[in-house]
């Protein structure tokens, strides 16, 4: 079998050279903010954002990803793909140990796959095309797929497919295993202490397999529930790192103007948070395509970008974020044009029926955004009623399709097969999840395109398919795309090399150092 070897060591070396242009210094403690407090740190069992942000230091995946989403070595040092795109062979690093000094081997990889299929809904979906996992030796893992699956090399970051220690979890009840409270991984930092409600403390892994890493001695993750208090904690120097989303947007310009403060929007390329308005395609005015198109013209998305998000966003052109694979902007575009919106509403036969708008209850920024959109819609004559909810209420209403228009944002995971298709294909129409085809859009052509796109091989075929899908969707406007969001990471400028990969702070502080 002829193999197409995709070794990324050169890429990794190039990145390392760039990143280490300054000579890193060893030692020091970083204080960061984590919000909300994670329910647990065992990332195989708990998949929320704060869990990954802390646990990304403790656990690792087989691969990491560059900001351009190219795979980089993680626990796997090299990998190859068979010519038919169905067999992926990973060579693992040698000399890697778990935090309890037991060796990390291919048996752990095979076990992790079984584990995550049971506990991790996203991994379960990503592994749907996996036929079998073989471990011919301790450092080789062979994944055989039922059919080619284009994004397969994109599913191995630490949050999507973390490696779980077989010797600790095999034969136990995963959810009640006591190690869940003192997690054991292979990562650069080890769990030390968690004072609930106050802080989580991680310490350097002295046996980390990359010589000289990590540079830092300790990381403290502080739990500060109030956004204003988090901003003050940074302002007064009590914390050094505010990961994306830690403070309200209107505080960002003020904080970034402080002395010795640096900010970056990088580190979200893999997740590519994409915001839109769910439009209920089943009933009411939003069931009418012309009404939905009118909404796109009625909303001033540049205002939201510049004022609500302080420029830390990009106007979305369609279902895919510009940072993920196969994105195109050669689609129908919808510039702010209230007159055109009014004309379309007339064509749609809209008679002033009440439309319920559900803001996302994630704080002041989202509330202000909803108010701006409400104003835009009222300006073109749409009768809008804002419905207030808290997070559980929002989840319930959206999952039960009990809304007309609802704000949301979702991650896209680097590939349309992983994070875009789920929101538009008919098989994903089912109550009980706020992440699937909540709007109820159904188009057999789109279903076929996304089915073909996931399994087409090689990449050039996939590209054609997804370009076509984006064109159809932007014509149909099943949802009203708003902004590609950027969650700025704010740090003291002496915190160096913190964001180096496509998942930024979520990939841990492995390469970070303090310029004392």
């Amino acid at each position, binding site marked *: 079998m002829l193999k197409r070897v995709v070794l990324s060591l050169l890429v990794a070396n190039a990145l390392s050279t760039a990143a280490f242009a300054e000579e890193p210094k060893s030692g020091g*403690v970083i*204080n960061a903010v984590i919000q*909300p*407090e994670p*329910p*647990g740190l065992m990332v195989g069992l*708990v*998949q*929320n*954002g704060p869990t990954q942000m802390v646990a990304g230091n403790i656990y690792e995946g087989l691969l990491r990803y560059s900001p351009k989403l190219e795979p980089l070595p993680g626990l796997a040092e090299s990998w190859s793909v068979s010519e038919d795109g169905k067999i992926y062979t990973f060579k693992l690093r040698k000399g890697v140990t778990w935090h309890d000094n037991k060796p990390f081997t291919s048996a752990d990889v095979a076990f992790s796959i079984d584990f995550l299929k049971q506990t991790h*809904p*996203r991994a*379960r*979906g990503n592994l749907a095309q996996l036929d079998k996992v073989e471990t011919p030796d301790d450092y080789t893992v062979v994944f055989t797929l039922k059919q080619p699956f284009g994004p397969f090399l994109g599913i191995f970051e630490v949050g999507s497919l973390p490696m779980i220690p077989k010797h600790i979890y095999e034969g136990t009840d995963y*959810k009640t295993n006591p190690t*869940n*409270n003192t997690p054991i991984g292979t990562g650069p930092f080890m769990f030390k202490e968690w*004072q*609930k*409600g*106050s*802080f989580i*403390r991680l310490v350097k892994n002295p046996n980390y397999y990359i010589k000289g890493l990590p540079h830092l001695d*300790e990381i*403290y993750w*502080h*739990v*500060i*529930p*109030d956004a*204003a*208090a988090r901003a*003050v*904690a940074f*302002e*007064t120097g*009590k914390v050094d790192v505010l990961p994306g989303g830690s403070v309200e947007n209107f505080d960002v310009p003020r904080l970034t103007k402080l002395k010795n403060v640096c900010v970056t929007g990088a580190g979200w390329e893999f997740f590519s948070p994409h915001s839109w308005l769910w439009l209920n395609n089943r009933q009411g005015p939003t069931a009418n395509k012309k009404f939905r198109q009118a909404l796109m013209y009625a909303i001033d998305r540049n205002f939201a970008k510049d004022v609500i998000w302080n420029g830390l966003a990009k106007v979305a052109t369609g279902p895919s974020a510009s940072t993920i694979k196969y994105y195109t902007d050669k689609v129908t575009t919808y510039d702010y044009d209230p007159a055109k919106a009014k004309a379309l509403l007339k064509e749609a036969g809209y008679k002033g029926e009440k439309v319920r708008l559900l803001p996302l209850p994630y704080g002041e920024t989202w509330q202000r955004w909803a108010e701006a959109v409400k104003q835009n819609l009222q300006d073109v004559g749409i009768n809008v009623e804002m419905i207030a*909810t*808290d*997070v*559980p*209420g*929002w*989840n*319930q*209403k959206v*999952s039960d399709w009990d809304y007309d228009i609802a704000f949301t944002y*979702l*991650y896209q995971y680097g590939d349309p097969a992983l994070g875009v298709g*789920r929101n538009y294909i008919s098989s994903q129409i*089912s109550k*009980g*999840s*706020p*992440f*699937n085809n909540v709007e109820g859009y159904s188009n057999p052509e789109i279903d076929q395109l996304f089915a073909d796109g996931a399994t087409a091989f090689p990449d050039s075929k996939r590209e054609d398919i997804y370009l076509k899908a984006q064109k159809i969707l932007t014509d149909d406007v099943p949802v009203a795309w708003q902004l590609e969001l950027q969650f700025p990471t704010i740090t003291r400028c002496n915190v160096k090399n913190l964001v180096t990969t496509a998942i930024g702070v979520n990939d841990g502080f492995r390469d970070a150092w303090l310029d004392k």
Partner: protein
Amino acid sequence: MLAFIAQRLAKAVVVLLAIVAFNFTLIRMAPGDPAMVMAGEAGASDQIFVTQLREKFGLDQPLPVQLYRYVKGIVTLDLGFSFRQQMPVAKLIAERLPATLLLTVTAFVISLLLGILFGTLAARFAGTWADTAITILALIFYATPLFWVALMAILLFSVSMDWLPSFGYETVGANYTGFAHVLDVGAHLILPATTMGLFFMATYARMTRASMLEVKRHDFVKTARAKGLRDAVIQRRHVLRNALLPVVTLAGLQAGTLVGGAVLTETVFAWPGIGRLMYEALLQRDYNLLLGVFVVCSAMVLAFNLITDLIYRAVDPRIEFAS
């Protein structure tokens, strides 16, 4: 007196169980459940995931069965398991209770002592500039929202002056021990305890002033004065003691809410107490944890109501226990 206490305790158990049943029903009427919240936080979920969670938490059972199981647990002093925190509720509450008690008891003592002191001074010097100043300040503290006072205090004492820490219970990573630790916790306590205490201090001051001015007009005060007693003795022994009954009532009510009443203060100052635990449990629909905190708060209210009744007897011997 023992019969009175026994009777009140028996009534308290019945009231507590009624509160549990009421709260249990009320929280389940709110939209969303813990399985939906946890699925929401996962960033991706499917029906299998949600169903697994509901089975695990027993939420797939009919409501009366869930209520029966919960009440059965309460009777055996088992507050259940927190869905989200993956820990027994009793353990979680026990972990957070000391921090809350430290904060609220400090705030309570500050507010009570200063409130009575300022109220007494205002009454003693009624109509003077001192009375006016105290009354105006009390009115300001009474009318200002707690979260605003908290944020302004942080801005002034933490950001501008850098005198006091703005968040937390202690300096994380400093590893102070002994007296240094006490001082460190004390420094962290000043802002939240004072902020929390200001409102109640204002209440006590106003109440004490009004009550003392009322008592001062009574004949027995005139008699005491006619007997030639010193003014300080009259104020302390005759006026203040008789004026304290409404203050005791108010303090009793406040003391009952000590455990659960610090939600805002604990949130703004990142104080790791029960108020925050309750707030987070509500947002996450962590039913068992929320109900557990409610049970503890309700028990505290009932206990302090009883204690208040007993203190009445001590303050005013004319009050008798009706058994």
